[in-house]
């Protein structure tokens, strides 16, 4: 009997959480299509004008270009920097390894607001301050370690015997990399890649701190428009929020083909 009650409570909580989430998401969606909406259960009239308004007034073509550029650059650079490091960390045991892992770990557990201000100060001291390059460099700080931790288990799954065998048969290091390691770790690259993609598009704090007026990503531009509250019609901001949400949900759907949902949240139990 107690077990039953317990399970019931569990499902009620999950249901409540789902309803609350659904309410939040639907409310934004509804408001984006509302002509006017003021304290009634549903808006009296629907329109798609706010999307046109948002597109024309919020400089969305440039914002989207920046977002895509930043996201793709961060994915490519993070994978390129992390890939060789993850290989060594998976294969070798060396003095100071624990310390090195701790170093990679810190940018992931220290909140971005805590180190973001000094990072922004440093970046503004360089000629690239406030540019799209600064945004990419800043986002790489947590994403390189993330890529390393995601890639390590994929390298561990590749048996070293394959590399030995290839070497015995006369393969060079470049050949071993191109013909054995790379093909066998493609799933790892995909997993890490989609995780970085979703995280970069929805990452707010660091991008907010280091970006200038011409290098805002979608989520940062969205924040500024909400913050300017009153100046912009709330429906147009919701229209922009809906565009952002659609982007993230599409990316998430793609991501979930490659990763387990639990991987979307950084896990510590294996570190």
């Amino acid at each position, binding site marked *: 009997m107690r077990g039953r009650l317990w399970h019931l409570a569990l499902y009620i909580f999950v249901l409540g959480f789902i309803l609350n989430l659904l309410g939040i998401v639907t409310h934004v969606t509804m408001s984006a299509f509302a002509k006017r909406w003021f304290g009634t259960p549903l808006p009296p009239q629907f329109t798609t004008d706010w999307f046109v308004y948002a597109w024309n007034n919020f400089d969305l073509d440039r914002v989207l270009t920046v977002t895509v550029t930043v996201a793709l650059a961060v994915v490519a650079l993070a994978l390129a920097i992390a890939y060789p490091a993850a290989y060594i960390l998976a294969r070798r045991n*060396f003095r100071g390894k624990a310390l090195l892992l701790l170093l990679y770990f810190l940018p992931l557990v220290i909140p971005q607001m805590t180190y973001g201000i000094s990072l922004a100060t440093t970046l503004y001291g360089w000629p690239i301050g406030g540019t799209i390059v600064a945004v990419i460099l800043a986002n790489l700080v947590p994403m390189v370690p993330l890529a390393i931790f995601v890639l390590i288990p994929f390298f561990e799954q590749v048996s070293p015997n394959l590399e030995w065998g290839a070497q015995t048969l006369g393969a060079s290091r470049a050949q071993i990399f191109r013909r054995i390691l790379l093909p066998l770790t493609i799933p790892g690259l995909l997993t890490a890649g989609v995780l970085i993609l979703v995280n970069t598009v929805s990452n707010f704090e660091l991008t907010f701190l280091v970006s200038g007026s011409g290098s805002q990503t979608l989520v940062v531009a969205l924040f500024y428009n909400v913050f300017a509250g009153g100046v912009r019609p709330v429906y147009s901001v919701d229209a922009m929020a809906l565009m952002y949400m659609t982007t*993230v949900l599409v990316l998430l759907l793609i991501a979930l083909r490659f990763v387990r949902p639990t991987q979307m949240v*950084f896990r510590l139990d294996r570190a």
Partner: protein
Amino acid sequence: MRGLRRGEPRELDLMAVACLAPSVLYVVLMFVYPFLRGIYLSLRPGKEPVGLSLANYVAFFSDEWQYGTIWITFSLAVPTTIVVVATALFLAYGMRRGIRMERTITTILVLPVSLGVILLSIGIQGFYGTRGWFNQLLVGSGLISEPLRLTNNHTGVMLSLFMQQFPFCFLMLLGYISGIDPTLEKSARTLGAGSWTVFRRVMFPLIAPGLAIAFALVFVMSFAVFPSAILLGQPAGSTRTIAIAAYHQAFEHYDMSYASAIAVIMGLCQLAGLVLIVLVRQRMVLAPTMGVGKR
């Protein structure tokens, strides 16, 4: 490729160093260096600093508008952390044997994290606002006569923090709890222990270390609360958190030295929270018995 086999620590050869170098250099240049530079900068106040001085820290702790942010931030972060960890423990413990539709449920839980804090804040502002659906429902059903004020105050910020931190904490605890050897629980039951005794005497001591980690991480993350404190709170009043104070100094007063000092104080507060949790954890005697189990 002599070094392929795992074993005794050994020196790294040139190739290994070359492989590690880019990422190490990156983290040092873009994370460690700015961090240390921030600490140094915080000790050199004024336009033309001479030597090192604690003037910024003195200024912070003698201005109530500034040092009050520490209390405000704690009053947001601590209750949120307790609620998040308690709820997550309750749920994860109930699901330790696996439940129906686990993948669907975890996907839904992960959704708010992926959507990001800005969208959540916008949605909460609409849904839980005085004219939102939540209040319409409560007023319409006659439960209350006046709409509840759930946004633009502490409650709004905590709602958003909860939705951000809960999935993370839940999934961590679920992984931890489902990794505990189920035979321990079975043995306890065979010996006649009831559900509560099993939890209190067998499971809780085993979960405690994981719980401490979860508590620490949720607290540290909540203590840095920034965008939701602006969008769902009163950033110039009751929810002016320490992150907002640091941001103000940096980007509105352009006083990077003072801003760095506030960022350092924020880091120290988080560290203080961590140390406290580690101390509590050490008082709880435990021997991790992670073994077989789900996953």
